[in-house]
């Protein structure tokens, strides 16, 4: 196989890449366990189990690499590209969630969640703004009441209330 085709084959063969990723994780774990101390009472110290598991992960990841090279057929997966609208939407929902989590403690559950819900609804093509406002306020209030009052689990109240 010419080098150009070979690299294209490697890139398209996701199982090969995932196997290599598994080998990389196992190598990192093996490296990190070298700093673990020995146990005074037994030969099985804190590093024993992670080392065994890292070897296991490395072995089966190598097997995945080998089988994906030997079988010569590439297992097809749904393509993952931000050019695809669904993937972009999922990516944005993740981003909005990260921003929400960062702001949650500062602005409190009720305010933050209502805005967050509306943003997600907008992302999911809801354009009935009245329904968005009503359902977002209702969902955040019900969850707040259930957790804070019925279950006694305090959700962040925000800077407005001092914490």
């Amino acid at each position, binding site marked *: 196989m010419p080098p150009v085709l070979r690299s294209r084959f490697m890139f398209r063969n996701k199982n090969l890449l995932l196997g290599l990723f598994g080998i990389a994780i196992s190598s990192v774990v093996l490296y990190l366990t070298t700093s673990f101390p020995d*146990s005074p009472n037994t030969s099985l110290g804190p590093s024993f189990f992670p080392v065994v598991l890292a070897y296991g992960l490395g072995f*089966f990841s190598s097997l995945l690499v080998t089988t994906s090279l030997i079988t010569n057929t590439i297992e097809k*997966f749904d393509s993952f590209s931000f050019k695809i609208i669904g993937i972009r939407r999922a990516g944005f929902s993740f981003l909005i969630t990260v921003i929400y*989590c960062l702001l949650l403690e500062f602005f409190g559950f009720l305010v933050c969640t209502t805005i967050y819900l509306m943003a997600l609804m907008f*992302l999911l093509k809801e354009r009935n703004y009245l329904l968005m406002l009503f359902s977002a306020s209702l969902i955040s209030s019900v969850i707040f009441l*259930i957790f804070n009052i019925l279950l006694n689990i305090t959700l962040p109240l925000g800077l407005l209330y001092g914490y």
Partner: protein
Amino acid sequence: MDIELFSVSLLNVLHWKPLLMIFLGVTGGIIIGSLPGLTATMGVALLVPFTFGLPLIESIGMLLGIFCGAIYGGSIPAILIRTPGTPAAAATLIDGYPLSQKGEAGRALSISVFSSFVGGLSGALIMTVLSPQISKFALQFGSAEYFALAVFGLSIIVSVSSGSIIKGIIVGFLGLLISTIGMDPITGYPRFTYGSIDLFEGPAFIPTLIGLFAFSEVFKGVETLSSTTKTAKRIKSVFPSFSDIKIVWKDIAKSSVLGTFIGAIPGAGSDIAAFVGYSEAKRRSKNPEKFGNGAIEGVAAAESANNACTGGAMIPMLSLGIPGDAVTAILLGAFVIQGFQPGPMMYQDHLDVVYTVFSSMMVANIALLIVGLIGIRLFARIITVRKSILLPAIFVLSIVGAYSMRNSMFDIWVALFFGVLGYFLQRYRFPVSPILLALILGPMAESNLRRAFIIADDSMISVLTRPITATLLTLGIIALVTAVFRQRKLDKNLAIIDDS
């Protein structure tokens, strides 16, 4: 069995508060199970945080109510819109949907509730009789046997995972590696924590499972957002007729027993039980040609088998501390949060809790019959809820659920991390359940193996050659080897189909 203690437990469960929690759990479970795309595992994962602040008896009742409700709930969209709400309901749609098309949706739904009730109750009764016997046997187990049991449980679960066995094993190892994050169980040395106190106990269980089963699913739901609104069929009757019960009772009885025993095998979930129950009903039927075209026996057999599985799956969880599937793994985690470690010692130290579980399970199935029959029309409407409202609500429930266990923002980040991990694992066809089970079985395997080595003066031979240990490890290897051969055969058959 201590009948007096059991009666006291049953009476305690019948107090208004635990009873209310069971009914709420069943209702919540049915709602989540009936929403296509939300699995029973996701339902239980989302609703577990609601039980944190409750007393033990109410918490157990609610959890078991959710479990039973969610498994049944999947049959509602399977019958009405040909979309199983949970994988367990996949067999139900084969005959449920044709019945619905004939204008007999109410008949199919009411038999589905009735069969689920009988199946679930039978499973609970068999569990009540069998699990104490298994736990008595498990009392002979020492550290070495527990290590072997954990390895056996994990190998069985990996071997029955859908898709590639190699990928299942890789995910199992990854989960076991994640389980080593935190303090070493013997020496207390912090491993892979980088000085973070939040990681000293490892990634918290509930946020991890919310990430793997709720966040990952909801990201997938956002990606594949469907704009089509499906409408539910009109439902006329909501109670099963005596003539139908007369037709299906034999199938229900057989599927209930089959489902319980299939559920008791670690890894063999309610979806497998439903198909086995369905096939058995078709095999013994005088009119097998009716199956697939709206045979009420098909609905009854599939539903009684998958709900009987709930009781069966509880047997290894309660008596051995080994979860039979992802849902019981979550339940096990919830029990631990309540301060009880399921396993044989629970039958010695907390028999009252064990009996509370038995009686709650039975009452939950009775609640399922009541809520299921009364709410048929309402639940049929829930499946038409707009995704644009439902998915954001699940996002918030997932975040609150992850946060509420320790009031910790760190746990939300853990849930998000595992959500992204779960999303990509599923995208590249890695099974996700082995990670969750590895998080439970990993610490059990490690601490018991190392304890066994200390007791045996570091002699590997004396640890691994103990009769029960050797038997369990051999069975685990056999399960994996059999799975590899089974998959090779399947691949060959697929290749032949492709060629032709």
